């Protein structure tokens, strides 16, 4: 049966490529999806399945989460330095009766908007907009919610010229020092430094089929094995699923997804987390600032903690 699944997935991949080229094979696609779905009830998904889900074009994007989760959302633009990055949506709105600053990496829906949003890959302006709005949240003592969904940092000339390394580095220190609670939810792809720049948070949650990794499986395979086509293999050894990260203690909560996760099924997911977000933020907000910062420090301090060998001077 595992064999059959693999075959169906291969076929599906090819059909979807055709569909993307404008050839309508949607019926054939749906048929195989149904078959796959039936099979999967019995088999746990492997990492590559989750990679595919995490990247699915039908998967809800940050703007849809905001639409569904946040009331009276007011978007604010710009880094006050160079530009406004459409790959990052930032603003303020109500979750329940609490005003939050919300920052979302936005992949966009539809080809045109995906191009405009640079497929969720931030330029330095995007990190700096986020920093500005984070500092503002701190000034007004508002909790922050970050939605992470990015393939990773952007490999453009301008991004290097304008210091994306510096921009990410500054996001890390700013988040390290933020005196308000920060919750991050990885909703799709959590790729490399681009994801980390919004994830030095008091709690990091992941959607059930999201991934969080040091770089894309393709990039990993390319660097380590000189063969980017070995991405599937890479995804298995990289340990990038929500389940992996939860077992490492790097993720505080894995949010259950419906079988078919899309804009249609998003509201039920939102309802399952809304209260949790508000309550979690309130719990951290209740801490004295020193305790909040200490807790955040210790959370990350424990990651990759290595001890000295015994018996040494």
């Amino acid at each position, binding site marked *: 049966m595992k064999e059959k699944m693999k075959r169906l997935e291969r076929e599906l991949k090819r059909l979807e490529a055709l569909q993307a080229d404008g050839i309508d094979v949607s019926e054939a696609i749906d048929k195989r999806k149904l078959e796959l779905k039936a099979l999967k009830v019995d088999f746990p998904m492997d990492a590559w399945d989750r990679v595919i889900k995490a990247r699915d074009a039908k998967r809800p994007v940050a703007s849809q989460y905001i639409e569904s989760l946040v009331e009276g959302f007011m978007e604010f633009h710009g880094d006050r330095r160079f530009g406004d990055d459409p790959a990052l949506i930032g603003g303020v709105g109500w979750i329940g009766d609490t005003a939050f600053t919300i920052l979302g990496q936005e992949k966009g829906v539809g080809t045109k908007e995906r191009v405009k949003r640079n497929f969720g890959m931030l330029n330095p302006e995007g990190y700096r907009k986020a920093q500005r709005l984070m500092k503002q949240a701190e000034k007004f003592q508002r909790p922050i919610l970050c939605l992470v969904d990015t393939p990773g940092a952007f*490999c453009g000339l301008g991004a290097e010229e304008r*210091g994306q390394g510096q921009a990410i580095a500054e996001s890390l220190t700013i988040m390290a020092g933020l005196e308000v609670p920060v919750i991050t939810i990885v909703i799709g792809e959590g790729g490399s430094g681009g994801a980390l720049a919004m994830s030095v948070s008091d709690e990091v949650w992941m959607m059930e089929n999201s991934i969080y990794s*040091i770089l894309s499986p393709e990039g990993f395979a390319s660097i380590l094995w000189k063969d980017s086509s070995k991405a599937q293999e890479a995804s298995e050894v*990289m340990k990038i699923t929500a389940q992996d990260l939860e077992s490492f203690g790097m993720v505080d909560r894995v949010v259950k997804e419906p079988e078919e996760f899309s804009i249609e099924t998003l509201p039920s997911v939102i309802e399952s987390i809304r209260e949790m977000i508000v309550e979690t933020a309130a719990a951290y907000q209740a801490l004295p600032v020193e305790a909040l910062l200490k807790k955040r420090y210790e959370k990350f301090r424990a*990651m990759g903690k290595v001890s000295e060998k015994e018996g040494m001077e």
Partner: protein
Amino acid sequence: MLFKKRTYATIQLPKTKEPFVQTEADPISRGEVIPEGDFHKCPNCGEIFYAEILKTTEGVCQKCGQHLRLGARERIAQITDVFDEFHMRMEETNPLDFPGYEKKLASYRERSQEEEGVITGVAEIAEQRCILAVMDAGFMMGSMGSVVGEKITLAVERAKAEDLPLIIFCASGGARMQEGIYSLMQMAKISLAIEAFSKAGGLYISVLTDPTTGGVTASFAMQGDLIVAEPGTLIGFAGRRVIEQTIRQILPEGFQRAEFLLEKGFVDRIVPRNEMKETLSGILRLHGGIR
């Protein structure tokens, strides 16, 4: 005498099998070959030197001025009057159970006689005490895994606890792939330590040496109160080849070099190797408040 006895246990330069200066690329991953024996070729102008002569020039090519890559121990010898290493032997880690990782690590350890890609300790530079961490681009491309992250974090915490300035010599190909997400989290771990140190008023000088790339650039390399770089140092986040593939054009010669970063506003000063010690001690004095 380079390594003088102070408060901590002192160390000797190990009998390393590595050449004095390092080649541009990691030989294992890029398929290049370290020149054998007593000669070394300048990767910039092609000039061939006796390795011994390079020692007298601090590893700077006397023909073209190229600053060849140095091992961490040699760097420490050039910069400090006293160096007391935090004499740690860290547990081996393989958090992802990555196939072959232990073996690869062991081979680097054997070859370099070093435990990992960074050396940390308390240093004295022209009578100014500081905490010093020096990365080694030769150890698995200077990649950052949990041990490197832990040692640097401990160094930053030590600087905070003892109220000493902090200097980190960066040299890194980026995150260590074999440790996956654990490598990524080292960026966060170190950044938290640096922010806490900074809030306490600590001075952190970041020194960028060839190459400073990837996750190191996107964290502590760029978090210095002051950032100095050796001439010609490669400094970037994304790799040159990846960018070229993405934008489908060849990048200009000086792209991602220290001089380019200076012009773009990301580096405070470019400091030739033979002025590095004086520059660092000058900065330390200015921040110590005593002329």
